[in-house]
């Protein structure tokens, strides 16, 4: 059988980095081909080459046996490639249907036939089990739904080779399973699916063939029938990975964070948080599980002081901080690892030292007289980077030049280095490699063990389950269940997340 897609010896150099080092890959019609690897392994570069965003320095690409030169995404689309990006590429002010049909609009007398567009899109959505309102404006939609729109976009173009770049991050287990069904249906219709992920259970669930990348090379080709997750992760990291798991024991510490009947307004007058009460005690991790867009981000932002609240009370170590400013909250003992580390957690063009200073700029230890002490600020940053194993050429480099994992360590070092009693951790491991995930989990658990209270929000149920002492499930702005991670499985949490958990 001719390979649908054949890559031979793909090599790509960037200044100082060999991103792809002679990668060979063959994918056949009717197969789900998983490409796994840590961040920096070359997955993204390889896919960018395939999609015409980068030209390889060496190597050939063949599609259906014919050698091709893919020099632009348009050419890639013309060759039947479809890509679902990790970062959404949608027009916020247009409707779902308009986004999906863009550049292939159904028209009538030269005008876009909106009715038909909407019908076609809703039919497409329904047939693949992706619940989306085709007439909703994209900017009003939560992240989880945006992902579905992205998938719809690729499906609408009927691509014969579909590249899915970590598509499951924002889905519930049920939605994920539905996506897998979609993928299997597409495979059975003879399409080729390149599925990029670092979640091994997903690989085991859907892969027909596995290619493992490490350091820019294809280090293993595996058959899921004969391999194990342990073997895959060994190939990915080049070593054995320790799986971290909290002991799950119930903390009896004093309450550090108390939230009472909190209401936060969302867009369009719908409450984003509708009467939430809970507490987080010293020495425990409370995990919040929710599908994206169910109020968890608003809840955390309200606690952090970045979003106004309508009513309710927030207490930190007994002090009412409901109306306190962000800096007062920080002074009272709150640290915050935000979801968006690029825009909120750091300033990309500022140096690492400047980034590490944020929140501590009024600390007398970093002053000399009335002025900031440059030496103290640099030393502070150097100490933190040593403690948190951040690999840097110097603290004066711009934060934007760091890799995702290293950047998150900068955030982590700054937020955890001062041993605040409360840590708000929002998606702390999203998009970082296995090594960094392991490190971040260890650090969070170490902070818990020294008595910190941690509120963890994550889309990764495995992360929530592994770290939490208690799990709170949010649905449509309310806490609908409190679960013990030791006695529930993913499926049950998932049911609660979709609001059908019942009692």
């Amino acid at each position, binding site marked *: 059988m001719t390979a649908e897609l054949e890559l031979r010896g793909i090599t790509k150099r960037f200044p100082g980095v060999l991103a792809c080092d002679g990668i060979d890959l063959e994918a056949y019609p009717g197969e789900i081909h998983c490409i796994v690897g840590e961040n920096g392994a070359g997955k993204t570069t390889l896919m960018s080459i395939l999609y015409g965003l980068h030209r390889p320095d060496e190597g050939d690409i063949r599609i259906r046996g014919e050698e091709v030169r893919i020099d632009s995404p*348009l050419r890639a689309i013309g060759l039947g490639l479809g890509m679902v990006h990790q970062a959404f590429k949608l027009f916020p002010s247009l409707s779902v249907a308009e986004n999906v049909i863009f550049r292939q609009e159904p028209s009538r007398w030269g005008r876009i036939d909106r009715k038909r567009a909407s019908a076609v899109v809703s039919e497409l959505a329904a047939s693949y089990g992706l619940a989306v309102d085709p007439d909703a404006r994209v900017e009003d939609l939560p992240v989880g739904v945006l992902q579905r729109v992205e998938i719809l976009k690729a499906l609408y173009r009927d691509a014969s080779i579909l590249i899915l770049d970590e598509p499951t991050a924002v889905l519930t287990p049920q939605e994920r399973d539905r996506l897998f069904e979609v993928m299997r249906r597409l495979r059975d219709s003879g399409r080729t699916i390149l599925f990029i992920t670092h979640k091994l259970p997903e690989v085991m669930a859907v892969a027909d063939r596995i290619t493992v990348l490490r350091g820019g090379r294809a280090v293993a080709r595996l058959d899921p029938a004969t391999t194990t997750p342990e073997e895959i992760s060994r190939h990915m990291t080049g070593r054995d990975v320790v799986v971290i798991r909290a002991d799950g024991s119930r903390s009896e510490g004093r309450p550090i964070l108390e939230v009472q009947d909190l209401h936060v307004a969302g867009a369009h007058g719908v409450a984003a948080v509708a009467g939430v009460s809970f507490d987080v005690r010293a020495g425990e991790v409370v995990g919040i599980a929710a599908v994206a867009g169910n109020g968890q981000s608003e809840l955390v932002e309200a606690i952090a002081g970045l979003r106004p609240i309508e009513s309710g009370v927030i207490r930190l170590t007994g002090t009412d901080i409901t109306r306190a400013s962000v800096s007062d909250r920080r002074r009272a003992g709150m640290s915050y690892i935000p979801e968006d580390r690029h825009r*909120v957690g750091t300033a990309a063009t500022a140096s690492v030292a400047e980034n590490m200073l944020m929140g501590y700029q009024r600390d007398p230890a970093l002053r000399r007289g009335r002025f900031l002490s440059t030496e103290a600020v640099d030393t502070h940053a150097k100490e933190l980077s040593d403690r948190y194993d951040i690999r840097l050429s110097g603290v004066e480099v711009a934060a934007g030049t760091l890799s995702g994992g290293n950047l998150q360590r900068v955030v982590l070092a700054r937020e955890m280095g001062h041993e605040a009693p409360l840590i708000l951790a929002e998606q702390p491991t999203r998009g970082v490699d296995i090594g960094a995930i392991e490190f971040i989990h260890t650090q969070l658990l170490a902070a818990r063990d020294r008595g910190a209270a941690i509120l963890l929000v994550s889309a990764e149920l495995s992360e929530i389950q592994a770290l939490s002492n208690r799990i709170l499930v949010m649905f449509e702005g309310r806490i609908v269940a409190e679960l013990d991670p030791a006695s529930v499985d993913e499926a049950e949490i998932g049911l609660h997340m979709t609001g059908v958990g019942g009692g």
Partner: protein
Amino acid sequence: MADSLRSRLPTLLGHPVTIALVVSFGFGGVVIALTGGDPLTAFSEMLTGGFSGNGLRNTLGRSIPIVGMALAFSIAFRAGILNLGGEGQMLLGALTGTMLAITLPGPGVVVVPVAVLGGAVVGAAWGLLPALGQTRLRVPLLITSLLLNYVARAVTSYLVRYPFGEPGAAFASTAAVPETARIPRFEILGSGRISISFLFMLGIVVAAAIAYRRTVFGYETGMMGLSGPFARFGGVDVDRHALVTMALSGGVGGLVGTHLVVGETYRYIDADMIAQAGFAWTGLMVALLAFNRPIPILVAGIFFAGLQIGGFAMERATDVSWQLAQVIQALVIVAVVSRFSVGRKRLRNLEKEEAVAEAEASHVGEV
């Protein structure tokens, strides 16, 4: 932090600027040659006219409003606030300072500082207005600060014509500032006398350089400019800082305005001041060119002032119009700013570069 500044300095004083200058003068030279002139003569007239003898004094004098307005703009722009109201802050400050200098009784040592302070306060208040609109009512400051220029022009024109105008004057103007209430001048570099505002300006440049790098306020406003969400996340009171930076920015604008009358022309002449308001825009260009950093602003501001003064000298000595100086100014900015964006790109690591390429390409290709 010092290291990061040092590592950025070469970008500024090193080759990009050199290249920009070579490109700009090269292009200007080609234009002169094409119109039948001699580029070398023209440029040598320009440089000697702008940077030697009496020309140097004129250049330094002209650099006061240019550097001043560049600083005014940069104070806000560093914090991510685009204050386009420099003109209005300058005009109202100027008229206030002038009227105080004219009307206040007492010795110069008292009157001049009070007049200067008054100009700064009114400039600051005019800068605060759009800032309040933005922080309290969420009206975009970019627009209001710009539109308030027209209000300021109209108000100052009216005041100069009627209540404050000198009766019987041929054009709308105030009376002259009495000699005792003028900003004093001193001999500089043997090339003539210059207002002590120049020293004052140097002081502000140094103070800004220290404040930007070494104070909490400087750090926090700088971070606001690099990423507003990051500053808010870190507990920076961004609304309060917006008010303070706008007041400072407007205040410096008011100082510059006061200097232009109480230190230079001694009469607030309506038409003349509206023309001088153009310094606000030259200042904006200088601030962009110097990436808001005070010392580079000083250097670039003096250089631009020299180009302008030299341009006049060149026009007197050759057939080349002084407007060539403006063309060169614009070319320098385009060259440096485009060079900067290329340099930025190189800074990004692999991952970032990919994301950018992807985003760019997807707008063209994908979807």
